[in-house]
């Protein structure tokens, strides 16, 4: 077919029969496809992504340090209607102290009572003015289990919330456990420069058993010393902790004093432990 004399070639026309055969092939293929789509429509859309089936559930936020319930005053709280105290209805285990962390950039207070008109205002507790970015003192609340105390901000009376005193072991996500001190490796700690160990420094009494909790989604350790030390990990070492795992550090054998520690996986994560 390389070199034809084109002028005399007959013109080949598509015939109706040939066209019909072509259409039948297309139509049958489409009909088979449509049958599969219609019958399998839900089946092909039924399985959740494999990654969600193999990954552990996101670990619940770790309980804050023993005996202290932390309530945040969110950034932007001073805008009327914006979210303000978080959690909004805090469950405070009986005997816990409460600290309000002001994450906003203006003054706020947490003052018991329903508002400025309340005759009982600030009787139960009052943080006084808390600067933006600072935390209140540890407030002791003297109330029975089951009591709900409304409180508000004296500077912005539309910021209102309440807290409830609960049994010590009901603390849950917002309460503190009455057990030993806790060291939390924060979510996102693996990013260089991000907050990592919390609290830092952690102060404990000699003999306390520290619970270390990895709230991040990658492996971490808390290993005594510094990355360059020959005796790193001699004093204490949690070993590799998976995401969400916990480990313990027993301080019974440690001399009182200040200990540096770091993460073997991310050596830029460093913290201090003080034993009194």
């Amino acid at each position, binding site marked *: *077919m*390389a070199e*034809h004399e*084109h002028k005399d*070639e007959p*013109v*080949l*026309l*598509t*015939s*109706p029969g*040939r*066209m*019909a*055969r*072509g*259409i039948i*092939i*297309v139509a049958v293929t*489409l009909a088979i*496809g449509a049958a*599969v*789509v219609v019958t*399998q*429509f839900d089946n*092909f*859309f*039924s*399985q*959740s*992504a*494999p*990654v*969600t*089936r*193999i*990954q552990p559930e*996101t670990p619940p936020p770790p309980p804050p340090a023993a005996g202290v319930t932390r309530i945040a005053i969110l950034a932007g709280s001073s805008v009327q209607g914006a979210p303000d105290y978080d959690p909004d209805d805090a469950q405070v285990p009986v005997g816990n102290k409460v600290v309000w962390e002001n994450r906003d950039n203006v003054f706020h207070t947490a003052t018991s009572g329903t508002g400025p008109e309340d005759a009982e205002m600030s009787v139960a507790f009052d943080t006084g003015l808390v600067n933006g970015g600072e935390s209140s003192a540890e407030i002791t609340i003297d109330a029975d289990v089951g009591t709900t105390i409304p409180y508000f901000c004296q500077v912005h009376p539309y910021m209102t919330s309440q807290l409830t005193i609960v049994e010590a072991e009901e603390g849950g996500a917002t309460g503190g456990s009455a057990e030993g001190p806790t060291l939390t490796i924060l979510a996102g700690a*693996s990013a260089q420069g991000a907050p990592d160990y919390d609290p830092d420094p952690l102060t404990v009494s000699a003999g306390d058993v520290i619970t270390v909790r990895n709230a991040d*989604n*990658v492996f971490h350790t808390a290993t005594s010393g510094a990355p360059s030390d020959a005796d790193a990990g001699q004093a204490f070492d949690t070993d590799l902790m998976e995401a969400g795992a916990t480990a313990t550090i027993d301080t019974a054998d440690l001399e009182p004093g200040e200990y540096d520690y770091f993460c073997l996986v991310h050596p830029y994560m460093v913290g201090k432990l003080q034993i009194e």
Partner: protein
Amino acid sequence: MWEILFSTHHTDVGLLYIILGLVAFMIGGALALVIRTELFLPGAQIISDPNTFHRIFTTHGTNMLFLWLLPFASGIGNYLIPIMVKYKDMAWPKLNAVAFWMIPVGMALVWLGMADFTWYATPPYSILSAKGPAAEMWIFGIKILGLSSILGSINFIVTILKMKHPDLPLMKTSLFVWATLVTSIMILVALPTFTAALIMLFTDRLGVSGFFNPNMGGDPIAYQHLFWFTFHPEVYIFAIPAIGMAYELIPKFSRKPLFSYQSGVTAFVLLSIVAFASWAHHMYATGMDFTMKTTFMIGTLAAVPASAMHVFNWIATMWGGRIRFATPMSFVVGGLVLFFYAGAGGVVNSMMPLDFLTHDSYWVVGHFHLFVMGLITFAFLGMLHYMFPMITGRMYNERIGMVTFWLLFVGVSMIFLTQHVLGLYGQPRRTFDYVPVEPLIVMNQISSVGAWITGAGAALLMGNLIYSAGKGKPADMRDPFQLGEQYYDYTRKEPHH
């Protein structure tokens, strides 16, 4: 019939590409009609739940881009490139057939699964929430289609550069050859990025990696960069063959030589380069810093002069010509008009401050549809009518051809120009329902009526072509449109003797 299905000859493979493209155009169009009918009124109409709606528009988008635009352009390229470079076939006929036959496999995976994560498959939704196996089917379907594109473009590049007749300089070939060459090179440069991203998406879904999974420290925005690095140039990969077809048709139907060949080549090459400098204009709203946004804004605007060179070239070619507005020419000129609107809207989108108003609204839907349905599909349909005598040996019904053109032109204008305004009124894209206020209802209804008109036009077009292919008047194969021009060599289409 079997000799066509199992053939490796370029006209047979080209015909298969064209038929597959047209089938995809019709069934994807049917989904579009479902979408527009659903949106005729707020609330649920014919689709019971939002997830089904998401699956329908995901399949519609994926289908139209990868199973209508790309295969159709390859089909016309298969028909014409060997003729235009004076070679007996494509460089590797078997590879050509293999590249085609991968497409039905990809098509089956995309259509049977009907994933729901839009044609972007944006993580983290596509990793964590999208339901399988539809999502996996989509990922592998697109993978296969991408591989087919790569094989096809290698074949085109080799055919054009190595199999070209030695006495034919590249600068004397048709601009459609240039369009195909530039497109094929762009596919080779752009596609690997997304090919890698698809694998990463798949392993992320399996949970063995966490590239884009924020739960595992991954960055979903990185996916968007990889995606758009491929798919912004892809916009030009869709458009450049259409522009090449317009260069093929406009001089012939204006009965005048092309105004400037060199500027056409220059604009193709320019467009193919600046296409790679604008991908992040899809991502202004992801929190990029100001310098980056400004850089990509300038990169985007750099595409305007090159596009305008093409448009001026066409206008200057038509100027003073004895234009014959047969169906192919009408489609091309109609596409040119819609291209103006699309381009003007595009300048608004690319302006970073204005983009924040239009981002993810119906404005964007209107804008890109004017490109893909306006310019590209219109040029494709024009070319299809022009090639019709070459493919079938018969002539389509010219009067019905003109009716279909006007139905499509009016319908498409109604749908997509209205959608720009809908976007400015704040209707977000990809919504199953909308706020029942009068302006939104009225504009959605105009848009839906336009869709039905377009659907009627497309059905009439297919009816005309199917009927004429079997029973149409035998065409004058030397000059079927009476333009006093040399038509393509009709004997090429029948190798079986």
